[in-house]
């Protein structure tokens, strides 16, 4: 597998590997501390959610924090934000569409599943 090609005749699509780009470790550690911080916030919210407040609100907070964590893991750790926009959208949009569809179905038809 050649990672640097001199001539187009050397290009083999199945084994072509582009030159790897190094982005530095500073951003990675920043992301780690952010993930750690959000997880700590998760636990603080879990144990100190005021008694009278609706639990659905707490759950929504957890899900939103989870989505923030997901964006940072996928964007920074998996380097998706350094890829071409078409590829990013190609992966993210179907994922959001189908997972959103599943959640939507759950919310609307979920009570048809009876465990009694």
């Amino acid at each position, binding site marked *: 597998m050649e990672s640097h090609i001199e001539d187009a005749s050397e*290009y083999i699509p199945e084994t072509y590997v582009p030159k790897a780009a190094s982005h*530095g470790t500073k951003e990675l550690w920043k992301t780690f501390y952010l993930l750690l911080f959000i*997880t700590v916030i998760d636990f603080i919210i879990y144990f100190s959610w005021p008694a009278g407040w609706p639990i659905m609100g707490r759950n929504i907070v957890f899900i939103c924090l989870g989505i923030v*964590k997901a964006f940072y893991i996928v964007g*920074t*750790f998996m380097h998706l934000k350094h890829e071409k926009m078409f590829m990013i959208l190609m992966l993210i949009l179907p994922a959001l569409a189908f997972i959103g569809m599943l959640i939507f179905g759950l919310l609307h038809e*979920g009570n048809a*599943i009876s465990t009694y």
Partner: protein
Amino acid sequence: MDISIFVPYFVPLKISINMSSETQVLDTQPQWAGGRSPFNVSYGKLMMWIFLLSDAFTFSCLLVAYGAIRFSYSGDLFTPWPDPSLVFNHFPFAHGLHLPLLFVSLMTFILILSSVTMVLAVEAGARNEHKTVVKYLLYTTIGGSAFLGCQAWEWSQFIGEGATLQENWFGFTTEASKKAHALGLFDHVHWDRATDRTPGPVPFASLFFIVTGFHGFHVLSGVVILIITYINAIFGTYKRRGHYEMVEKVGLYWHFVDLVWVFVFTFYYLI
């Protein structure tokens, strides 16, 4: 030599073919005209992303099914879903201490840390620093194995308390039993995990084993792949190849495993 042509979708309208052989000819070709990867990623990496997409759907289906089953238990006196912070309040070497969710937060920390060491290995691979890659691959493998060990301990604790795929002995929570006593119902029923065990919703146990088991299976296969990659890295396979693309691909898989854990632990333990 300049040629102006009309090509639709994401391509430049003008391509210039550089006649000298020193520059990389590929940079001047239109993106979608074939013969190259339109995203400038290798075939293996793109296929790994697509596999992770499919695996994301699988885990989403599992978690949505978990949501449907879990929320069909209304949480009242007679159909209480156990409170995970009351069930999972153990810690190794701290027998009898009530430490709610501390162990699962340790597991999350271990997995996130292993994710960081993995991406540091990938970065070192991009800079072609062989020794650093090997070092961080080892740390990641150790982190993954530590997570598996923790998960095994958690399973053994839960199974030791009688949970199987068909049994769950965490019936009434302390709150429910207090309410029951206040109402004068079930005077002899209380929830003390050491002595009185009331059968609770079976899906609490079976879903725990299935969801964490499926995720743990992914961690296990990730650790196996990491060990193979580590051995390859030590033997200099990637140094000879000239690039550490394999480390990148394994890194993608490992970060996906971490991502799924974030959601599994949020949905099962926190929500």
